[in-house]
């Protein structure tokens, strides 16, 4: 009777505490729910469905166990794991979602996004995003050997870290006008996204009507999730990772 939303877990071997918390989450909060939506940056990096690191294998196993128990799992690309493909979905029972996707949640249209495309003021990043999402580039990249891809990914990470150092925080938040335009375009009153690591529920006005923007939280010190019920209740919840 419940639908859950998470994003920005940034799963990586270096953070066993997040991995452990996520598996606990799958076996407790997410069990017996109708659906779990993972809205991007689920993994810190993803260079192809064929890598199969121990972390990836164990995550796949746990996701498969949840999807087989009857909870539908939907996954959307983030800016870090946009190469997650059909093979991953086949192996886990997940369904890959476009960004944006409009779903009907308990009778209402809801827009789901990762959120990076809303940060239009970061022009440099928007250009990079366009290049990375280019189908031809992706196909070429995935054809390269695993070690080659690992090297490229490492280089991109180093560049990105160096660039973000000097960037003002507000530049990396969403552009308010872009949020309003997106809600207006889809005639929806609820937008759920992640990416910015600024968990909050914002009330706003779109075309003179009330609308809501939910920003999911990143899993760093706390686990964050959004819980939606047929009663209309929408709760953005968190708890310390160790619990």
């Amino acid at each position, binding site marked *: 009777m419940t639908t859950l939303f998470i994003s920005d877990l940034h799963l990586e071997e270096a953070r066993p505490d997040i991995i452990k918390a996520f598996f606990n989450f799958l076996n407790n909060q997410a069990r*017996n729910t109708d659906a779990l939506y993972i809205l991007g940056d689920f993994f810190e990096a993803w260079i192809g469905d064929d890598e199969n690191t121990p972390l990836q294998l164990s995550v796949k196993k746990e996701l498969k166990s949840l999807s087989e128990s009857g909870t539908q799992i939907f996954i959307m690309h983030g800016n870090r794991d946009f190469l997650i493909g059909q093979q991953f979905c086949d192996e886990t029972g997940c369904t890959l979602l476009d960004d944006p996707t409009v779903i009907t949640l308990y009778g209402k249209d809801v827009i789901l996004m990762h959120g990076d495309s809303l940060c239009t003021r970061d022009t440099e990043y928007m250009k990079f995003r366009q290049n990375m999402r280019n189908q031809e580039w992706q196909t070429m990249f995935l054809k390269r050997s695993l070690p080659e891809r690992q090297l490229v990914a490492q280089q991109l990470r180093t560049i990105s870290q160096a660039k973000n150092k000097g960037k003002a925080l507000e530049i990396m938040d969403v552009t308010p006008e872009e949020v309003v335009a997106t809600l207006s375009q889809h005639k929806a009153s609820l937008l759920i996204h992640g990416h910015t690591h600024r968990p909050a529920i914002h009330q706003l006005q779109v075309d003179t009507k*009330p609308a809501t923007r939910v920003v999911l939280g990143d899993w760093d010190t706390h686990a964050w999730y959004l819980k939606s019920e047929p009663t209309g209740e929408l709760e953005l919840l968190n708890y310390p990772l160790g619990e």
Partner: protein
Amino acid sequence: MIVLKTNFGDITLQLDYEKAPVTAKNFEQYVRDGFYNGLIFHRVISNFMIQGGGFSAGMTPQQTRDPIKNEANNGLSNVTGTIAMARTMDPHSASAQFFINVKDNGFLDHTAETMEGWGYAVFGKVVEGMDVVEKIKNVPTTMASGHQDVPVDDVVIESAEIIEEDSAN
């Protein structure tokens, strides 16, 4: 049977005393007490359900009797035109608020006796006045008093009355 006389027209309900005895009697008692008279449909979602019986115009919440046990495990499904009890996340928290399904909402049905699986208890159906329900489901809504999907213009249950059925049949 029970008639909800609204400012959009009459909705006639047949309650299922056999499959949902506690819920049907609870609803009937609220009707007998005149509890629903003047209350509104305060949550209207056109492709989901219309919910009422908890607030008067102006979104003033009403004092109810104690919650009842959830009878969603009675085999009745939340199909279009059925009436079911609204509640909080706690399965056994229904008191007076109810909703009429305007779509087949099978995902609201009982699947297990757990928090997640209890479902929403169907206890009757609309036997006349689905056109009225259709009219109500399409009214414009807004946010009011912190609640979403509240009709802009009040949809009022002017009175709820019991019609005695033909006992010879």
